[in-house]
Every structure is written in structure tokens, then in C-alpha cells.
């Protein structure tokens, strides 16, 4: 079914339309949250929060902007709340319990570098990390990132730039 019809149905309280939207976006939202919070159980719990918020806020959804950006914005805000709750601070070393973002690739130098890099992503300041994840792994352009983050495209571009520069610095230190 056409997404616009599903959104209209869900806005009018049609639970089956809402559930179809959940089915379509459950995995993408989980993947995004996993890349942001680096913990699959927390990402799964936050995914549920995102859809509860989606249900509550659907009546506020206006025609302008895409539904995906709107939903991703909810997810990014949930991730930010999660960061705050965890009191993570930029550049603070990670807890040893926190899993790496990817499966370890121990056998090659490239694998080690990649593992180190993904671990470094977790240390980036919040906005840089979000910009990087949205750009590199979600394939959004800077205008879309700006829409999701509620900022200007120039700010999104600057955050992304500093994310790459900071990653380079972290990797060099190792």
C-alpha cells in the first residue's frame, strides 16, 4: 500500500495502517539506533520508544518534509536522550563492557584499523557522530541530515567535516 495512505490511515487511528508503517521502518530504525548507541538491546528498546512516540505525535505530522526524515528525527532525539541518560561525555573512554560496533576482524591489519575506527566513532561528540552516521551509513545528503537534526545544512556539513577530522586524530593516537 502507498505510504501516504498508510500515514493518513494511521493519523486517523487505523491501527493496521500504523502497524504496517512499523513493519516497514522497524529494521531501518533499529539499524540507525544501533549505529548510534552501539548496543543492540538498547537499540531494540529505543526502537519501541520511537514507535510509541510516532503513534503519539502522528497528529502533529504536517505535509511538508518527508515521513522518513520526521521518523528519523524522533529516533535521533531518542538516541540523544539515551546519551544524556547515560551521561556519556565526549572523549571519555568507553566502558569495556560496551561492544564494538562491528564483528571483530582480527586477522588483518585493515580489520584492526577498521575495528579501531568504529570504536573511535563511539567517542565522537554527539552531533558529529549523528551527522557521520546519517551521512555515511544512512546515505543522507546534508539537506536531509539538517532536516533530521533540526539544523542548517551548513551546520550538518561542518559537523560531518569535524567528525572525519576527529576520527583521523583518534586513529593517529593509537
Amino acid at each position, binding site marked *: 500500500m502507498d505510504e501516504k495512505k498508510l500515514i493518513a490511515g494511521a493519523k486517523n487511528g487505523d491501527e493496521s495502517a500504523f*502497524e504496517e508503517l*512499523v*513493519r516497514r521502518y*522497524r*529494521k531501518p530504525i*533499529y*539499524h540507525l539506533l*544501533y*549505529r548510534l548507541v552501539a548496543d*543492540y*538491546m538498547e*537499540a*531494540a528498546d529505543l*526502537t*519501541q520508544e520511537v*514507535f*510509541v512516540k510516532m*503513534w*503519539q505525535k502522528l497528529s502533529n505530522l504536517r505535509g511538508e518534509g518527508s515521513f522518513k526524515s520526521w521518523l528519523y528525527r524522533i529516533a535521533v532525539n531518542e538516541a540523544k536522550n539515551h546519551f544524556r541518560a547515560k551521561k556519556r561525555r565526549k572523549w571519555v573512554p568507553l566502558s569495556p563492557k560496551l561492544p564494538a*560496533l*562491528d*564483528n571483530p576482524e582480527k586477522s588483518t591489519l*585493515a580489520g584492526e*584499523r*577498521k575495528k579501531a*575506527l*568504529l570504536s573511535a*566513532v563511539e567517542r565522537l561528540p554527539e552531533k558529529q557522530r549523528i551527522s*557521520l552516521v546519517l*551521512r*555515511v*551509513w544512512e546515505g543522507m*545528503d*546534508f539537506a536531509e541530515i539538517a532536516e533530521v537534526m533540526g539544523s542548517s545544512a551548513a551546520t550538518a*556539513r*561542518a559537523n*560531518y*567535516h569535524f567528525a*572525519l*577530522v576527529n*576520527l*583521523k586524530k583518534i*586513529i593517529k593516537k593509537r
Partner: protein
Amino acid sequence: MFRCIFFRKKLASYLEGELSEQERKRVENHLEGCERCRKELSSLKEIRTLLSKKPSPPPFPYSEGQFMASLRDRMRKEERVSLLARVPRFAAVASLVTIFFIIGFLWLTSPHPQPKVEGVGDFTQLTDITIPFEDVISLVDEDTLLTEIDNELADGEAELYQFYLEEISAVSGPQVVVALAGLSESDYEKLVNETADALAKDLFPKMEEGK
């Protein structure tokens, strides 16, 4: 070096192909002549390449059925909380409406005077003064009246006096005065008379003396 700082800020966007044609050419022209910036671009490109493979998350820890059931359960709980949150507001509104109905009913069923204000400007009705002038004037638009008194005193004292008495009725209204003061019809008339008397003494002492 200054030019390098300017161009380095654009390298990430250059890598992403997010620069305009004109900006892209300017960056490329600079890169041709600047080894430091070429090295910077190369290291950013390496980072970008390493990042290009998406980290693959572990499978979602719940089946679709489990997730949907849990989500439905959670939403119902949220709705109950939302309804409960509305109860105090609803109760407050209901209480206010009930109070208004009771007051309205009592007001409609109880006898209340409809004073007839006549002859308030009649000097012959002036009697003893028992209510201070300040208390009475506070029931009406004090600023307007005092301004008028200041402005008009020299012109025509009698006209001003009449004006003031009319203002008491026009601004406050007989019912309002009665409601505010909690007066009966006879008390209201007394109030009007006393007001007139007080004002007369206050504004027209000479007239009173000559009465």
C-alpha cells in the same frame, strides 16, 4: 597557509561530492599546488573508505510478533496513563461548571432588588454623610472622574456634579453597585444620595454653605 585553512574546511564536502561545480574547481586548483592539503585529503579519504562498509548490527533481538505485541501493550499503557492524566483536569472543569450552576440557580431563584435610580442629581435629596467619599469613588472609574473634575471644575460646577452622578450609574451600573456593596434597594438609594452629598461637600463647599 591561510588559503589552506579555507580549503581544508571544504575537503569533507569535496569527498562527498557535495560542493557546487565552481567550489569543486577551486578546491581542485588549490590541491594541485598544495601537498599538505593533498595529504589531508588522502587521510580523510582513507577514513571514509574504512567507514564505507556499514557496521552490520546483530539481528533484532525480538521476533516481529513479539515486537508488535509488546508495542501494542506499551501503547495501551501509555493511553491509560494519558487518560488518567486528564482526570484531574476534567474533575476541575466539572467542579467549576457545577459551582457556576449552583450560583446561577441561587441567583435566579433569590429575590434581588432592581433599584431605580432617579433624582440622583436632585439637590433636595442630599442627606447625612455616612460613607467616606474615597470608598464610593473607588467603585467607579476613578481616573476618568478625577481628570474630569480637575479639568472642568472652573467651568461649571453644577454640570460637573450632574456628570459625576450620571457616571456612577453609567460606569458601575446600579446592579453592579448593589452587588459590590451588597446593598438593598433602599441602601443603594441611600448610597447614591450620600455620594451626591459627599461630592457636593467636597467639590462645592460654598454651594453647600449657601443651601
